[in-house]
């Protein structure tokens, strides 16, 4: 019973772990650079979800906008992780942007984004 509670009660954390592993797998194992990039994005999103989860509180806490009759801190969810994640999203988007720009450079040069094909091209160029 405890185990079930542990698994179901913390389902949001499990989701983040699964997402993170999917992203991690894609970054390491995929052959296509664009897919690796997508994996990276999933990986980062998972971490954002994790941070957001940490701000939730049991007992019906709500969004941190002051309402009449609610003047206790525990009635509101923690706003700080949200703010942090706004910044992290900005970081993530810019990383994504830089990476896309680099991918365009790679594509212009090799006309492909498949890692093995690029390696083959490089090997051929070396022989010449």
């Amino acid at each position: 019973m405890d185990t079930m509670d542990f698994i179901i009660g913390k389902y949001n954390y499990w989701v983040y772990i699964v997402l993170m592993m999917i992203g991690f797998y894609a970054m390491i194992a995929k052959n296509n650079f664009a897919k690796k990039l997508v994996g990276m994005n999933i990986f980062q999103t998972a971490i954002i979800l994790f941070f957001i989860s940490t701000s939730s509180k049991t007992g019906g806490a709500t969004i941190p906008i002051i309402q009449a009759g609610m003047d206790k801190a525990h009635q509101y969810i923690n706003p700080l992780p949200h703010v942090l994640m706004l910044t992290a999203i900005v970081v993530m988007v810019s990383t994504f942007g830089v990476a896309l720009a680099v991918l365009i450079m790679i594509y212009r040069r090799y006309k492909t984004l498949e890692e093995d094909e690029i390696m083959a091209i490089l090997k051929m160029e070396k022989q010449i």
Partner: protein
Amino acid sequence: MNEQASILIIAIPLLVSVLNIPIGLLKRSLCYPLTVFTTLSCVYLSFVIADTVINTGNISYHVGGWEPPWGIEVAIDHLNAYMLVIISFVSFVVSIYAKNSIEKELLPDRIIYFYTIYLLLVTGLLGILVTGDLFNLFVFLEIASLAGYALVAIGEDKAPLATFNYIIMGTIGACFYLLGVGYLYIVTGTLNIADLTRLLPALYHSKVVLAAFAFFVVGVAIKIALFPLHTWLPDAYTHAPSTVSAFVAATMTKVGAYVMIRVMFTVFEPNFTLNALPTTEILGWVASAAMIFGCIMALAQTDLKRMLAYILVAEVGYIVMGVSVGNRAGFTGSVLHILNDSFMMVSLFFVAGAIMYKEGHRNIKNLSNLHKKMPVTMGCFIIAAISMVGVPPTAGFFSKWYLIHGAINAQKWFFVAFLLLSSLMVAAAFFRIIQNIFFQPSESHTTHEEPVRDEVPCSMLLPIVVMSISLLVIGFFSGQIIDSLIQHAVPKGF
């Protein structure tokens, strides 16, 4: 003024970095003096900060007037002050060097953006150093990394490929770091480093804290290219433009090492880091492997910059090894080695850039008779190489002295052996090059015409000379540097 200096040192380069674009579009030639002036002002501010820290104690500046732990704190002690001086000085010297080198290696329309991103990188690195907030540190880490990706990508033909690899690895490192921050936030509810130092000891039994620590160490290990997580580094630093290679090689890994030291010995207490997990033991062995592996790979290279990049992998091993032995001498050695290594790396990559500038290649087999063409540059190369090997009285010797002393005090005889072995291999790697330069009869000069003296322009030569002379100067003043800054940075309990 003195307290504001700590925030101005990141505000000024950030502001100028943005201003560079409109100014550069109006008149491109203004970018260079502007950048040099900005980094010069950073040097000045870093000296002001260091002076304040030495004479009046630690600086704590509350951004926007918000009290920590709610507001963001800029906290500077001896370690930050020391690092600030190194990084801003290196960035100043590199910015002088940049002009001719990048005009030769980059397309003209990219030059404005080069200076912009360069200053952004400087901002990021200085930001990591001044901030007293773990999440803020992550943001600056990413600013620095993003700027680094962009700068590496504008390099040679293969640079984008190397950059992509670098982005993937760098992002994994940053995400691990961020996870560590998240875990600590869950258990303590704070992000302020000073606050964490106060709150954490009561929670050391918690598994969350242990996991956070592990994430921090692995994440930072990727950022500093600690073997076996170094795979992105040689490619990226080889194909980047020479100026960029010099700057990132000298600063990125060093700042990463600073983050590692901060997390291991300020956020967590030394006795936790040294005793709770076998982390330091593992790090020590990994660092030893890095020393040996880096040197072996360096011996196998024919590309000068690639060889230097592998030596950098070994040097990172030195720094981590010194931290891992967990005593005063070892720590002093590591921190001193951060300074020495960044200066040595700058000098050596500068020389590689000068060779690229004049010869158009950097294959170490085709360097014969360069000492006749570029006597001053090659003289500086020898000083830097000797320092890298660790021959007294150059700076490299003194940090190795402390590192070995630390290893002996900790009774880690294997580390001593590895350190000496890797010094020998570095010696072999450099003497191979020196022999090629000075004594190899060149094939093309069969006609016995004396090569004409042909040095790089003054704006490149001067930084090279300054850096290599400073290697000797630092050597002689090692004792003073340790007395005034490093010994105060040694964490309590060592």
